[in-house]
């Protein structure tokens, strides 16, 4: 979104050096989305548009409450509705607020080739600095949650900022402020985890035996967490990944391949240089010229 105080970066995309990290004492924050308390009113979705001043194109009714159909450069959070038949044959209406999870180990940031285009602050928020974004779409490939969207207008990638601008001045994210039921809470990650524990206990007491907190370890935990009544199968909530992790292809691409490839290219060049030092140039000798000439002249004479 926008560049905030650079002293609290803990990660910075495409950077081989340690980012400024003088202020490491900051509390990690988290947004807790309690799907069991969500009524699907989309106040959060509107508030997100309002605060971030986003106006998507008016689309078409697609036969579903999901509107628009998918995240896009102007839709950083989206209510996803699922009609799910439970084991007893009853209908459950599952509503999930989709958006960036603010991973502790962000795949987008790992994949990003533009220095400083994606940063993570000490409080855990993962933010896009559009100014440095080159529009390659690598973050889209890196993200295990399929969140970032590259704008066809300005070729910059966009996603939820967790209202980093508001959080940095002590306000809660706009969606949290707008939610009428308290389904979205915001605070320190430890407070939110504790609060989620109470909510999970209550859901269990009401018969949701598999209720639980979604804070997936595969990405090191997230700074947006869900309370799910069916935490044993997250994917029923409109495809929330069961075991999200950075794809092994992305891991390889951004892990071993980069240094090995650079070393390989450097070695090839160095090998050439030293070959030339050791073996010397391959020069055409005067007798070669004489032989070549003679061969041609013989032919000319025979003509």
């Amino acid at each position, binding site marked *: 979104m926008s560049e905030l105080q650079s002293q609290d970066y803990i990660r910075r995309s*495409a*950077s*081989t050096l340690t980012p400024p990290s003088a202020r490491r004492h900051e509390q990690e924050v988290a947004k807790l989305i309690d799907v069991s308390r969500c009524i699907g009113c989309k106040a959060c979705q509107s508030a997100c548009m309002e605060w971030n001043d986003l106006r998507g194109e008016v689309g078409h009714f697609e036969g579903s409450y999901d509107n628009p159909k998918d995240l896009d450069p102007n839709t950083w959070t989206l209510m996803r509705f699922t009609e799910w038949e439970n084991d007893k044959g009853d209908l459950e209406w599952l509503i999930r607020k989709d958006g960036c999870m603010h991973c502790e180990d962000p795949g987008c940031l790992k994949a990003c*080739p*533009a*220095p400083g285009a994606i940063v993570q602050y000490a409080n855990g928020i993962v933010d896009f600095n559009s100014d*440095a*974004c*080159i*529009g*390659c*779409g*690598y973050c*889209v*490939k890196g993200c295990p949650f*399929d969140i970032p969207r*590259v704008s*066809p207008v300005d*070729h910059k990638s966009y996603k939820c900022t967790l209202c980093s601008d508001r959080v940095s001045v002590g306000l809660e994210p706009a969606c949290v402020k707008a939610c009428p039921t308290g389904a979205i809470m915001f605070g320190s990650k430890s407070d939110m985890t504790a609060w989620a524990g109470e909510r999970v206990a209550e859901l269990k007491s009401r018969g949701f035996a598999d209720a639980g907190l979604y804070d997936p370890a595969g990405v090191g935990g997230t700074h947006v967490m869900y309370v799910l009544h069916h935490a044993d199968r997250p994917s029923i909530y409109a495809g929330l990944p069961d075991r999200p992790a950075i*794809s092994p*292809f*992305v891991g*390889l*691409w951004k892990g071993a*391949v*980069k240094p090995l*490839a*650079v070393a*390989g*290219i450097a070695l*090839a*060049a160095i090998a*050439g240089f030293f*070959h*030339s030092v050791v*073996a*010397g*140039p*391959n*020069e*055409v*000798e*005067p007798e*070669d*010229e*004489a*032989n*070549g*000439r003679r*061969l*041609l002249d*013989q*032919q000319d004479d*025979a*003509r």
Partner: protein
Amino acid sequence: MSRSPENVVRYATVTRVNHWITAICFVLLTLSGLAMFHPIFFFLSALFGGGQWTRAVHPWIGIALVASYAGLVAQFWRENMWNQDDTAWVRKFDLILQNQEEGVPEVGQFNAGQKFVFWAMVLLIPALLFTGLVIWEVYFGGLTPLLAQRIAVLLHSFAAIAAIAVWITHVYAGIWVRGSLRAMTRGDVTPGWAWRHHRKWLRELARRKSSGPQPRAEGTP
């Protein structure tokens, strides 16, 4: 025309133009690709007017490269067919690297090393094209599943590194074997160069009297 009348014509002008277009495209692709490949090379994006421009222009240069290399393939695939002489030549590769010409089999128009570069690029450039199309976000970003894109970008970087390594070998060979660059800058080589490095080819040229390597008079193509 700066060709020496004493010399042997090795490449027609159209071939050399085709080659240099390919070479320029390849160098630009390497510079712009590496800028996006590793942070230590990101500064190269400045050569293209910044990161956004680098990202935008790279695939288009790639298309130009594919078209241009197709031209070289059309001209040279016959001469690059592998034969037994090439296998024999490869067996003597240690001697060749040590600059010892004794005991190395005579070579036709292209040696096994040149053929290797040719076929490696025949493999790698289309691989770069297809993987590159999959990850071309502006036009094709939404057309393939994310898994396909993740694999494609990995393969694209593998193929690019391989192509760059092949290219370094190619350029080095051209510098190390003195007198070769002339074939691409002016189109001709000295009879001695042809004798030393492509003797079979020179014999063949000498045998075919009419189209042979007649010492060219100024102005004739």
